[in-house]
């Protein structure tokens, strides 16, 4: 079974803080993704990575950056957290073929005060 873990289930931060969300997978998948999930909007892609040190912007990259130094780990960084970044953040992984299914982590619910 694919195992995708995220560093925190719940996180409370203050406006202006730098926030790190980490995702780790154990399936040697090439592709990793960060989504944010908001009610009524479904999941929206923030960034994805198709290889170590490679990244591509998704639909809503503003205010976020990512890092992938090792294949199994993909980090989402909020450089200066703002209240409109309060959301559920989901990490996903996918094998190399485009037809592959995406597998999700448990999510991190972030509250920015």
């Amino acid at each position, binding site marked *: 079974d694919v195992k995708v873990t995220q560093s925190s289930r719940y996180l409370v931060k203050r406006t202006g803080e730098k926030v790190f969300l980490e995702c780790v997978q154990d399936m040697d998948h090439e592709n990793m993704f960060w989504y944010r999930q908001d009610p*009524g909007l479904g999941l929206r892609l923030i960034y994805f990575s198709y290889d170590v040190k490679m990244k591509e912007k998704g639909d809503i990259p503003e205010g976020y950056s990512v890092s992938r130094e090792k294949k199994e780990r993909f980090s989402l960084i909020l450089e200066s957290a703002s209240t409109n970044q309060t959301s559920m953040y989901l990490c996903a992984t996918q094998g190399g073929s485009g037809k592959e299914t995406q597998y999700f982590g448990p999510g991190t619910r972030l509250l920015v005060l």
Partner: protein
Amino acid sequence: AQTVTQSQPEMSVQEAETVTLSCTYDTSESDYYLFWYKQPPSRQMILVIRQEAYKQQNATENRFSVNFQKAAKSFSLKISDSQLGDAAMYFCAYKLGNNDMRFGAGTRLTVKP
């Protein structure tokens, strides 16, 4: 950009009954993949069922089946013999043969005992 529409924000079903969740999508492509994901309350998002667009036969997984109408760009999920554990948010998703997956806004399913 491809879009996915789930027109039912909420649905309710009696235990042991059958329910159908609707999903339509917009695309000009002929080769793509469709998915239904389930997100139980406070739990991880998991894949329920997937369908390759080139396959005419509707996918089934135990009590879950789809009605894939390619010409109508419709991909509904039927849950038979509903169980309490089926209560969750259900997301329909569309993906081309790359990493770009698009999600609908979700349908919250309640199962009444």
